């Protein structure tokens, strides 16, 4: 068909399967994301620490170099090493989310584009899934994926015995990353859906984490309790991560409590999304 045809023509060609429609949204959102140079630079920056870790793993297995440094005891590749790795990458994931997340839904709401999505054979769940997949894949690329690469490199250098003994670390890397990614994605999208201005939504994301932590500490100090930690997202995550990486830091909260609190967080975010992501708001 010629593109210069000026009259309306109907379409009778093949259609893509329904499950693939979310991928369309993912593709366009990701393309839009990497149009920003700052975003791309930040994304690249997120790989510096994994690269440093890779070098450390190599050095830890390079005996002659360590002997020269007389530091063969200082580099130990164990659960603490990976715990520290996930902490650093977790912070970077948060920074990346603060830049990326608010731009996912808020422009659609600000420009009234939601009816255009939902007047097609495309559900609200698929919309949220498509938008969330941008963050999930982006954050996966800087958290558990490089983590697994590091684990694989360490395994290849340390041998089968080490791998067998520390296989659980791989699971912890993936699980701890996915929990953090899920929380960040839901929080960023919920804020993005409720706040039309992208910058304000980004600032709110920072506020939820930092002011949440400050507010939690204030509650603990004033009321002489530990229940303030329930609103401290960072504390909750750290509790779960220390549990997953089998590190005893003497946390005052049990992992079950932290899991429950995080599930409540996720539930609230989902409820906020369900309330806002719709073609038209019903004013009752």
């Amino acid at each position: 068909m010629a593109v210069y045809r000026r009259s309306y023509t109907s379409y009778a060609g093949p259609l893509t399967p329904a499950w693939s429609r979310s991928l369309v949204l993912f593709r366009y959102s990701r393309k839009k994301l990497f149009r920003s140079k700052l975003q791309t630079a930040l994304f690249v920056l997120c790989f510096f620490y994994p690269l440093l870790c890779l070098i450390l793993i190599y050095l830890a297995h390079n005996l002659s170099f360590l002997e020269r440094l007389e530091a063969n005891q200082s580099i130990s590749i164990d659960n603490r090493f990976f715990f520290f790795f996930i902490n650093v990458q977790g912070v970077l994931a948060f920074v990346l989310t603060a830049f990326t997340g608010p731009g996912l839904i808020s422009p659609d709401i600000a420009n009234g584009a939601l009816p255009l999505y939902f007047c097609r054979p495309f559900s609200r769940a698929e919309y949220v899934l498509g938008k969330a997949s941008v963050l999930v894949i982006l954050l996966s690329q800087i958290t558990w994926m490089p983590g697994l690469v590091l684990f694989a490199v360490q395994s290849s250098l340390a041998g089968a015995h080490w791998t067998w003994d520390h296989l659980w670390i791989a699971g912890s890397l993936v699980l701890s990353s996915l929990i953090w990614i899920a929380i960040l994605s839901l929080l960023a999208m919920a804020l993005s859906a409720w706040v039309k201005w992208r910058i304000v939504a980004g600032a709110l994301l920072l506020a939820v984490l930092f002011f949440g932590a400050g507010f939690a500490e204030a509650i603990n100090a004033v009321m002489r309790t530990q229940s303030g930690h329930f609103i401290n997202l960072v504390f909750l995550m750290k509790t779960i991560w220390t549990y997953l990486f089998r590190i005893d830091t003497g946390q005052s909260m049990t992992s079950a409590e932290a899991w429950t609190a995080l599930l409540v967080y996720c539930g609230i975010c989902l409820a906020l999304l369900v309330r806002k992501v719709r073609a038209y708001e019903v004013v009752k």
Partner: protein
Amino acid sequence: MSTAIQSGAAAVTNQQAAAAPQTPVIDLQGLSVRFGSREILKDLVCSLRGRAIGLLGPNGAGKSTLINTLLGFYKPSSGSARVLGHDIRTDTRRIRSLVGYMPENDAFISKMSAVSFVQMMAELSGLPTEAALERAHEALFCVGLAEARYRELGTYSLGMKQLAKLAQAIAHGPKLLILDEPTNGLDPSARQRMIRMIGDIRDSNRLQIVLCSHLLRDVEDTCEEVLILNQGRIAHYSNLEEERKANKRFLELELYGANGDFTEAVEKLGCECATTANRLKMILADGVEVRDIYRIAAERDVRIRRLNFRRDTLEDIFLKAMES
């Protein structure tokens, strides 16, 4: 590639739906919609089959709510409705695959060129990437945005944004095009262009149109059937095509030199007459033609200065519906 692509089942259904004239475009069976304690649509019953259907009504009459309910955005509180034969409660996805929708308000994606925007919307409707790109170019050419199709939508004027919305509504080749106030905010020439374009799309005979507007002129220029809503109820249904034909029996004459003889002679033919000053309004009786009137006038030396087929305009119909 073939495994990733379904057969064009929806397209086939489209053709079937269009080919079957007995299937109403919109079939409302006691449809009511309630938001909290407010009943917005009240027990609507009608069956619309025209090529271009106008939804008329004053602001707040429930036109947009009806459209949004047909698209599955709002749930009916009672009753049912069918669009192209599909139930809005159970076949929402199917209906949405057959429909192209142009919303009333600003609706676009910022920082995206028109061609990417229309392509994305076509892909979300199920078109493969290459076909969607081709259709996006075609649709933008069709609505007259060819020169500006690589520009960001945020830089478009209001009229251009309306056209871009129209392009995304037709890009995937729907069988029913729903236009919600398409001429909102347009200047007279842009409005004319939009109406002409809607007329062209209608005349292509490839899809049916539902035009929702509070501007009588827009509906009169494009639609064959009109459903007038008022306060959530059907105030009037009118088939404009039939009314236009029927109104050819209504005549308004401006006469010079007429006396009672002329009116009597016309009435003897069976026509109903009403005289005001030098004007005569009449309804032609069956079997009586305009040339008979001319003949009687010539026999009585009456000069007919003007002869109009006086029909009720949509405005008359609308005002009557509002009064009732």
